[in-house]
């Protein structure tokens, strides 16, 4: 195919209107053709302008949608963001492998065509300040909530009614401890040096009483550093059976098993906290 014939495909390509086979052929040509790449860029700008022809529709709840977008982002690290130590040896800082700071050679008419651009600039500054304030407030709120949670966890584990079990293997690591407040029927598992469970698997704890089948005590996962502090969802039936003799740890399919599917990785006996 000649370059002129390829150029015929530039507009449909920019609109995504080529069938897969032709798209692949065109992209192969594109890799070595600056003129076609330039044409594509211009057509993509036209497509961007076309988006503005859609009739304005007011979202049902624009603020909620914005929150959802920002909150989702807070849970995902963008591509290319890496932590590097700062030059003066202080705290690591977030850096990006982006060239976005380079001077803009954007197609000029697009900027002008956007009647919102000038107004938006002013709004950006205002909103950035407002958002910073909102962000600080929500950080403070979550810090308070985290502290309240820690306090209630602590309260559950101070007192004579608390038992603890340390689960150990022959080697030193990992360390798993389970705390049991039997008047509150609360179990908390803490761990360090625990390797991540295999894909599709999770850790599960079992309550063992002599002469009885193991009772499931709930599942948990560890963070990448092998640590956890997890409040277990444990059925009240466990408390009703009186003192638990031992506690065992297995690896089970996600969601947990009604009965262990393997022999215990770790096992330990309960004792009172003194």
């Amino acid at each position, binding site marked *: 195919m000649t370059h002129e014939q390829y150029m015929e495909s530039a507009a449909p390509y920019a609109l995504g*209107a080529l069938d897969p086979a032709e798209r692949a052929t065109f992209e192969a040509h594109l890799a070595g053709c600056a003129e076609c790449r330039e044409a594509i860029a211009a057509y993509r700008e036209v*497509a961007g302008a076309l988006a503005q022809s859609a009739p304005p529709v007011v979202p049902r709840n624009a603020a909620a949608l914005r929150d*959802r977008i*920002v909150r989702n982002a807070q849970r995902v690290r963008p591509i290319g963001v890496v932590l590097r130590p700062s030059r003066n040896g202080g705290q690591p800082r*977030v850096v990006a492998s982006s060239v976005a700071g380079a001077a803009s050679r954007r197609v000029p008419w697009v900027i002008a065509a956007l009647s919102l651009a000038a107004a938006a*600039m002013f709004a950006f500054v205002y909103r*950035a300040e407002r958002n910073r304030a909102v962000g600080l407030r929500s950080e403070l709120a979550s810090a308070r909530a985290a502290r309240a949670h820690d306090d209630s966890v602590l309260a559950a584990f101070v007192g004579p009614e608390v038992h603890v079990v340390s689960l150990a293997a022959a080697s030193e690591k990992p360390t798993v401890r389970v705390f049991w407040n039997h008047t509150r029927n609360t179990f908390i598992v803490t761990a360090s040096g625990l390797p991540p469970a295999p894909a599709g698997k999770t850790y599960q704890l079992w309550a063992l009483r002599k002469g009885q089948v193991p009772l499931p005590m709930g599942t948990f996962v560890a963070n990448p550093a092998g640590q956890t502090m997890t409040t277990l969802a444990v059925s009240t039936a466990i408390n009703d059976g009186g003192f638990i003799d031992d506690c065992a740890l297995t690896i089970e399919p996600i969601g947990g098993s009604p009965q262990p599917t393997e022999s215990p990785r770790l096992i330990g006996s309960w004792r009172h906290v003194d």
Partner: protein
Amino acid sequence: MQSEIIAAMAAGDAEALGALYDAYGSIAYGLAYAITGAHASAESAVAAAFAEAWRTAATFDTSRLSVLAWVTSLVRQAALAAVPRERRRTDQWVAVVPAPTASTSVGRALGTLTEPQRRVLELSYFRGLSASEIAAHLGERERDVRELLKSAMNDLRSAVSPTGTVEERPVTRA
């Protein structure tokens, strides 16, 4: 200013994504609604598009493409993905077809297109159909559809002058 927002996003500043939404959220929502025709799908598409913008901000080069073109292409992709292709091919599904309007420069530019040009452009941009699908849909030859798409895009490209104003052109073309 916009490249600073993208740079801040690439550096992991989630509030910069909020600023991007403040700037383009309403265009994004209008587009997503035009394609999906439903609020729930439009919301999901906009959220998915901004999530993708967040994820890939570091790889986006503001010197090559405008932020508007980038964001709207992500929204269009996400919104089209929410409507099954079979449904987009049929007439039972009615896209919210934008009428050319004199209130925006692109609306005025659309007004300079012929009816067949507008029709194929709409089937392509808002329904995401390929040239061959559009040809089948309209009962036209594919090469004619491609010619219409190309001329429509070229006309739009030149209808908006470098200063961003629409050139004075006759509304009906020869």
